[in-house]
């Protein structure tokens, strides 16, 4: 019952499902962002997804929260495109580095058994 990415498509447009309200819509991946802390830094352990229909916002933790497989994939895809605000991963880095970084976040957050991507 969250707002989550149900289809990553070709990467230029993502399909969002807000299953509680029955809303489905398309968004640009660039609208999925990390929350900004009061000091202006971004929290790299959370991504915010907004329902394009009603404005409901889900804050997903890297571990996956309500939708572990979809959320972990979202973090991996996001870091591959944007790098990580913590500075450990740049946009120019190979995809494997980004995935390793996200897996580390998942392990730290929920334990090593939580990783659901292959």
């Amino acid at each position, binding site marked *: *019952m*969250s*707002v*989550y990415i149900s289809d990553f498509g070709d990467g230029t447009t993502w399909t969002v499902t807000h*299953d*509680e309200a029955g809303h489905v819509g398309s968004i640009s991946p660039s609208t999925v962002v990390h*929350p*900004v*802390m*009061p000091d202006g830094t971004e*929290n790299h*352990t*959370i991504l*915010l997804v907004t329902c394009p229909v*009603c*404005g*409901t*916002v*889900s*804050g*997903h*933790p890297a*571990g*996956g*929260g*309500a*939708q*572990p497989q979809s*959320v972990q994939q979202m973090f991996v895809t996001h870091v591959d495109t944007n790098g990580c605000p913590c500075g450990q991963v740049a946009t120019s880095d190979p995809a494997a580095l980004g995935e390793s970084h996200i897996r580390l976040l998942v392990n730290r*957050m*929920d334990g090593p*058994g*939580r990783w659901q991507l292959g």
Partner: protein
Amino acid sequence: MPNITPELGLALAVDSDDTATYLETNLGGSLTTVDSLFNNTSGHTHSGAHQGGPITSAGVADGSLTNAKLGPDVERNQLLTNGGFEIWQRGNGPFAANQLTADRWTSGMGAGGTASISRDATNIDTSGGGLYAAAVTYTHGTGESYFYQPTYNETPHLKGRTISFSIRVRTSTANAVRPCIYDGAFTYGAYHSGDGTWQTLTVTRAVGTGATGADVRLALNASCTAYVDNACLVVGSQPANYVPLHPADDLARCQRYYKRYAATSTIPIPGGQAYSAGGFVTTLLMAPQLAVVPTLTVSAAGDWETSAANLAYIQCSSLAANVLHAQSCQLIGGVASGLVAGNATNLQNVSGNSWLAFEANP
């Protein structure tokens, strides 16, 4: 007690609770007989307090009664969450396939299968009490589908143990619904006969020592409508009937995975602090702790408002999680202006449309 019948070889005992001399015996079936004698001669009814079922051998030695000897009405430790299908925090449905429905119950479809699942207050298992059951309307495709509780990742303690699952089901379709346990391999119980009555379906499996955990499921193999109620998972080779938890315990188990703030009246969320004229943070504590770090979903920012120094409320322009933990979380919000950095502020809902929910699915 007068008129002891020595030919039965009964031993004499003193019953302190009713100050009567009373008999107890090791002879098969004689406890019942003796209680009857006592009742007849004394006019005092023990109401079966000293009666058991027939004991056909010399008394039961301490510590010798095994799980295998227990009947289904002997309460044992329930390992499921919301086994009675009483708690539906996500609403009454109908829920489509692959969605969480009643708390901790979901479905998974085989190829081509579809399902609609709703809370049902009419077709309940009256033998088990409670207010609600789950109504599962299933259309079969080509593969087996399931209505189940996803306990697999939270049951490593079941490795190497024999477990038993029971669930009450009513359907008018034969060979459509049967229980199963999945621990990497499936073990099935018998199908519901399809006679339109409530039946207790059971299955027992010795969970493999190499398994990660174990799920309990209802396997769906033909199009049907099935009413589902009162499920129980226990350790041991004998299934146990569902026994309700205290409502507080029932809800607390559910809130380990999902917790929702929603009301038609005001929901005050105190303890916030403004950090600028347009920004504030507020913290929510989790009780009980969630199973994993949760997703926090908040209805549209305009559904919320936060207090200024004079306790006038200012509508939010943004509101979302910025820190998430299994024990607590922080929300960060924005307003156009009117806050004072360092001041306290209280978040509250604007209307009954406002809600926020934590969801942690291990």
